[in-house]
Structure formats: structure tokens, C-alpha cells
């Protein structure tokens, strides 16, 4: 009975993770061509995101004369909405990079086992981190650290760098 329960629990958790993975991986900007996107992409655009939910800003505001709690709540609400938007854009950009990477892999003239392995690893790491960040954003928004965002952006830059290192594809 216990074994059956364990197997069912593991199966259920696996299905949930796979669904989350698929949902995250399906957010792509289909209107933008790969070439246009690569020309304009830069991880620098996410620099402001790292500061959006810093405690410092809210503590500074709370210390100002005339501060009311509803002002703080409104600011937090607005900052959370902007952060959430940035996060969605980050996921879309990552998925676009992954999409291009997979295309490059499939049509590469030589076998690329390391790149394939690294791409899979980065995807799992990225989507896991995004899911955790979303949970933190919902429950403890002021607990979101800039370094967590920095790691996500670094993952994006890592995949971009690996893509640049690939041999010319068989087009």
C-alpha cells in the first residue's frame, strides 16, 4: 500500500513538473524572426529588474514624513507587477534562445553532445529558478534578492555564449 502510494505520489509530482516545464517552455514570441531577435538581444535590459524589489527603497520611503502604509502597499503592488512583466519577458527571451539553440543543434554538421547536455541542464535550472522566484514573489515579495535575478540573467548570457561557439550549421 505504501509502495503504491509512493509510486503514485512520485508520478503525480513528475507530471506536475513536466506540465510546468512545458508551460514555461511554450512562451515564445512567434512574431519575431530569429535573426531580428539575435541582432537586438542584450541581457543588459534586465539590469533594472535586480533592484525593483530591494528592501532599501521601501525602508527609505517609510522613513519619509507623511508616509502612509497604503502608499507603501501601492508601491509594492506596482513594483511586483513590473517585476512580473520583466520575468515574463526574461522567460520569453530565454525560450527564444533555446529555440534557436535547438535549431542549430538539429542541423549541425557535427555531433554536439556537450552543447545538447548543457542546453538541457540550463533549461531545467532556469525553469526551476523561475518557478521558485514566482512563488517568492507571491508570498514574500520583499524577500526577492537581486542575486537571484542576476543568476537567471547569467543563465541567459551562458546559453547565448554557447550558441555563439557552435560551428556553422548545415544550411
Amino acid at each position, binding site marked *: 500500500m505504501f509502495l503504491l502510494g509512493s509510486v503514485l505520489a512520485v508520478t503525480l509530482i513528475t507530471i506536475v513538473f513536466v506540465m510546468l516545464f512545458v508551460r514555461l517552455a*511554450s512562451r*515564445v514570441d*512567434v512574431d519575431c*524572426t*530569429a*535573426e531580428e531577435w*539575435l*541582432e537586438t538581444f542584450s541581457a543588459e535590459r534586465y539590469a533594472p529588474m535586480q533592484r525593483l524589489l530591494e528592501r532599501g527603497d521601501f525602508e527609505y520611503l517609510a522613513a519619509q514624513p507623511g508616509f502612509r502604509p497604503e502608499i507603501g502597499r501601492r508601491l509594492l503592488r506596482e513594483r511586483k507587477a513590473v517585476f512580473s512583466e520583466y520575468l515574463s519577458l526574461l522567460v520569453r527571451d530565454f525560450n527564444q534562445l533555446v*529555440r*534557436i539553440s*535547438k*535549431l*542549430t*543543434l*538539429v*542541423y*549541425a*554538421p*557535427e*555531433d*554536439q*553532445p556537450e552543447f*545538447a*547536455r548543457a542546453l538541457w541542464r540550463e533549461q531545467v535550472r532556469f525553469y526551476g529558478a523561475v518557478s521558485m522566484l514566482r512563488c517568492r514573489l507571491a508570498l514574500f515579495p520583499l524577500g526577492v534578492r537581486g542575486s537571484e535575478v542576476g543568476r537567471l540573467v547569467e543563465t541567459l548570457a551562458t546559453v547565448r555564449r554557447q*550558441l*555563439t561557439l*557552435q560551428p*556553422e*550549421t*548545415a*544550411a
Partner: protein
Amino acid sequence: MGRLPFAEALLTIFQALICLSLALRMLRSGLYRKYRYFFLYIVVSFAQMTVVLTVPFMTNLYRNFFIATELGELFLVVLVVQEVYTWMLGSLTGIVSASRRFIRAAVTFAIVVSLMLLTLEKTPLNLTGRFFLFERAIIFSLLIFVVCMLLFLLYYPVSLSRNIFVYSIGFAFYFLAKAATLFIRNTGHQWDRAMSAFLLVVSIGCLGFWLVGLSRAGEKIQRVIGHRWDPSDQERLLRQLQSINTSLLRTVNK
């Protein structure tokens, strides 16, 4: 000595006719050259169906004939699945290692899950029971393997002919129905005639699907499953790839 129940006999005749139509279509379109094992499987199935109607039902002769021909078909089905994945992944040099690793993992996973199900099935009392146990294990392994291959294609944007998709999706459904009916039987539910009729209907459905779906034109129509952009035009896809290379080279040279 008996005869096959009327409904099953009728379904078997109908199945044989669709089998024959599919075999003729594959001959006319030249697809038998590419999908050799699948063509052989259809021909052998047709032969089995026509002969089985003449063998006295519920006799040792019927049982032995059934087991012998099912074993032959099982062997062919394994070759058919191997043929499918060779066509799917054979020419993709960039992901050779990744696909081999995945196939090894998929085969291992398929066998382990299939064998685990044996613990839920009753100990067979006769030759037929032992054969069904063996057949269920093989078919279920093949089902998991085909599903894993489709998942692999969902992950990588591999462009394949429509025929390959029709081929593999048809088999996925067929294996699912067959594995399910065999599993139900092996767990002690003796609904032989009902399940036999159900399996005949599913087989007819799959054969009809292949009859309609497989064509010479289907070799030229390219599809990529599971990816929001759908480069049905192979040349447009490759042009985009070339321009990606150009962009990347510009980035490296900056």
C-alpha cells in the same frame, strides 16, 4: 470444433480488406520501398487474417496457429519500430549522441516499467496465458518507446515527413489498445470475446488511418511537431538558419 463468433468474423474480414487496400496503396505509391518492414507486417497480417477464418475455432490447432503468427508479427513490429526511429533520427548528425543516449534511456525505462507490471498480473495457467504475458510485456515496452520518441520530437524541432508522423501515431494508438486489452486479460478479467472485438475495431481504425494518411505526397510534406513556429517550408527554415549563422559570426567578430 467451433467457428469464430459472427461479429468477430465480420470484423476480421473487414480488417483483411483494409489491410489489402493498404498493401496495394503502398505498392502503387512506392512507399513499400522505404517502409519495408511495415509493408511486410501488413502483408503478414493480411495472410494471418485470411487463414484464421478457415481454422477451427477453440481448438489446439487454432491456439498454435494464433501463437505462431502472433510471434511472427511481434518480431516484425519490433523491426517496424526500429525502422521508424531510423527514419526519424538517422540523418541528424548534430544530435546523434543525444538521440543515442535518449534511446538507451527510453529502452531501459520501457523495459523496467513493462516488467514492473508483471507483478500485477496473475500467474498464467497455460501456454496461451504465458504467451499473452510475454506479448503484453513486449507491446507495452514498444508503446513506451514510441511515446518517448514522440516526446523527443516535441523537444527538438526535427522536421519530418508527414508519413513518419502518421506511421508512428498510428502505432502508438495500436500499441496502447493492445497493451491495455492484454493487461486487462492478464489481471484475471476473462472478457476475451469483448476485448478481441474491441481490438479488432481499434486495428481497423489504425489501418484506416494509415490508408488515408500515408501517401506519396506525404513524403514531401514536412512537419515539425510541438513547436509554435511551423516551418513547413524546409527552404525557409534553412534560410533562417543561414541568417542566424551570419548574425552569430557578426557577434563573434565584433
